[in-house]
């Protein structure tokens, strides 16, 4: 069993690479990613698990990195927005005007990316279930809805109405 009492060098697997970081037992993953590795794509928005701006994927599942201790991530695969390499959702967000200020975007991208992998045929209820974890304050969510739907099976032709 791993026992950490104070600042200790540990290894995290981030975006496909093993990275050594210094962490205290109380450090949250969001802090380590930003302050130790300079991966500032994950944003602090509430540091309370309410807004989703800090979402990363842990073994492919969206996790709010403000609610996870750094040491809990040892031995797991961490994927941050910086690790997305031309994922369809990135292009889809750009093409559907899925953001304005961009602060919530990393978190939304991670949730959508995971959703598209785990439920490529997701219906509206499933999409809503997944995306309600995050807050966007700039858009009307309609653009984000188009962005996610255009990368799920069935594509954008399913989207009805609207002049957008």
């Amino acid at each position, binding site marked *: 069993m791993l026992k950490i009492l104070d600042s200790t060098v540990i290894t995290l697997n981030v975006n496909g690479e093993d990275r050594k970081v210094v962490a205290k037992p*109380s450090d949250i993953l969001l802090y380590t990613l*930003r*302050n130790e590795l*300079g*991966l*500032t*794509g*994950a*944003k*602090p*928005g*509430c*540091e*309370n698990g*309410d*807004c989703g*701006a800090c979402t990363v994927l842990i073994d492919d599942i969206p996790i709010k990195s403000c609610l996870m201790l750094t040491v809990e991530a040892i031995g797991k695969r961490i994927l*941050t*927005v*910086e690790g*997305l390499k031309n994922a369809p959702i*990135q*292009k889809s*967000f*750009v*093409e559907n*005007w899925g*953001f*304005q*200020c*961009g*602060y*919530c*975007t*990393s978190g939304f*991208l991670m949730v959508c990316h995971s959703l598209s992998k785990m439920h490529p045929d997701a219906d*509206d209820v499933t*999409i*809503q279930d997944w*995306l*309600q974890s*995050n*807050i*966007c*304050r*700039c*858009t*009307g*969510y*309609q*653009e*984000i*809805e188009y962005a996610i739907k255009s990368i799920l099976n069935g594509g954008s032709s399913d989207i009805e*109405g*609207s*002049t*957008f």
Partner: protein
Amino acid sequence: MEKPKIGVDTKRLEAWDKVTGTAKYNADFITPDTLHAVMLASPYAHAKIKKIDIKKALKSEGVLAVITGEDAPYLTGSMIHDRPPIARDRVRYFGEPVAVVVANTEEQGMKGVSLIDVKYEELPAVNKIKDAIKENPILIHKDLSRYTYAATDIYPKANTNIMDHVKIRKGNMKLGWSESDVVVESTFFLPQSDHIAMETRNSAAQIMHDGTVIINTSTQGPFAVKEELSDIFKIPEGKIIVKTPLVGGAFGGKATIQLEYIAYLASLAVGGKKVLVRNTREEDIMSSPGKLGVEGYVKIGATYDGMIKALECIYYVDCGAYADTAPRMAKSIASDCSGPYNIENIYCDSYSVYTNHGYTTSFRGFGHTASTFCIERILDKLAKKLSMDPSELRIKNAIKENDTSPTQDKITLSNTGDLNACINKLKKLINWEEGTLIENEDGMIKAKGMACLWKTSNSPTDATSGAIITTNSDGSLNLNFGATEIGPGMKTTMAMLLAEKLKMGVEKIHVFMDVNTQVSPMHWKTVASMTTFMVGNAVLKAADDLIKQLKQVGAIALKCQPEDLDVGNEMIYMKTDPSKFVFFKDVVHGYKYENGNAVWGEIIAKGNFIMRQLTPLDKETGKGKSGMSWTVGAQAVEIEYDPRMHTYRLIKAATVMDVGKTINPKTSKGLVMGGMNMGFGLATREEFIHDDDCILQTTSLRTYKVMRFGEQPEYIVDFVETPQMGAPFGARGLAEHGILGIPAAFANAMSLATKEEFDTLPIFPETIYKKKKEVEQ
């Protein structure tokens, strides 16, 4: 020839930065030499500070300094100098900063804060507007009449909690009422709430050896930060440099100065080292300023055929514990109190009131959401009394050429647009004619509500902007201006304007994405939906300057007169024979003759803009000019109400706005939809709730609810284009306006569906249930 840029969907320049995590916001620039300031917040809404013991905190590991109000004998405020950056002697709202710990790490700072011991003597708090304005109230600012003022047109009443009173006196009220066959009156209430920009406010300060102050901050107004820091701390403006990268949402909440003061004081306390202060979400909600609350009383009179003859309104604006920009919003409410309608006789009092709630600052719509709610609700009540279709009543009274505004400003088609065209287009989009109230066989009730909107800028009368263009040897251009990128894509809009003017590709315009007050030309503030208008005009002027210079140097290269030339596709060419040309790249850094001699040097172009003909409002009549133009529009909401459960579903919402000219259609629609979504937040859930001791209860995103994915209705946005003279390609402001009419249109639909009157926001299913119960009893 290059294709047109204006009116063509153009992706924001920084789009890929924002989907790859490379877009940097202020608190993303993490450096090991940065110290952290952490605030201690007041647990009381109103109390005397008897004693602050910082000894233990100072001994705590990593703590370098602790500062309290005693170390900062300053009073700040953009209107009234009434707010100490750190509370002194007393606290006036729950969450007010009382002490600041500077430490090596944020964690050590938090530990230090927990070791500060403050002794308070609790005072009774003013928790309601009615308690603030009653006879012999508890005074929140005993020194109100002794404060100094940053504005000249502000009229506080000594020994009261009223910090300002704006009056509108237009026409003849006696005549107006005598001409009215029908009179309707009501009171309305909109609670205080919050901006909830996803990036919480944060600022860093560093003081260099020569006294130069460097502020890195998430703000809408880097130049205002410079100005006010200079004013308060008596630092020459030239010695202050403010830098702002991308901003993670603002909505008015980052247009004022708060954490910048604290960051500066914190840096001063540790010998000028770089100190960052970053709000937690809780601090962003409770300690930093929010959105004003409004209580409105409105009385309206009309003839039987629906011509409005008189309007009387009294507004009490809950500004909270300090003035900040709130009196300007009370003024803005008064200035546009008629809504976009022609009313000849108007009497309006708008009072800015202190309470022991959190203080407030500009918020999307600048007070107009409140006035729109009141006027659009009363219009529906009037329509009901007249048995008239609400849309007809609005069409009949819509403001048009040669009418006057409440401040007696002359209305032209150019300075407002075509409201009736908006209403008519809206009615088609929302299928108004099928009926506004439809009961389905399953018992569900479908209802539609409408609201119109208008808003002007309410800027200072001398608000100014600038733009600078420099050139690259590949023929591309660099564009630099002082508006921050807070989300609406203004950097992209400006690139589009310049590209259109130069007839070249947008991708060849490189915009300086940050703002650095030492490098960027001044822009008043990125607020009031004024960036396209103000900075756009400066950019177009700079483009003219650039073209003039290009033609001058081109004339040398082509051995002709500048007037013989035109520009396009990064070339300067002969009008009569475009095959005779020089490329930009060969002249922008000077023209070199064959023998090696050279002339001219780098082409650097500039443009500026200042607001025209604006005046403050007359103290007694409100006569004056608050903005150069309005944007008008119409909005509708369709809901489905379940009369058994008193729940509702948002089905559809539409906006048609006269934007003059759509510069970047998808971006414009996105801005309007975002505004509408925020409007639904205000309509259905967002509010500050204070307990009996005036303690804010909604301090996290768990207790303060915002719209989430999937709760939004289907959004439909469309535009009417009546150009505004003197605006870039005729374009009006539109960034705030989507929010304005949504709460009113929603409340109108709910009132219709439930057959009850909803005049208070937000409207929860529980509110409907209670109202129904009340009526039953």
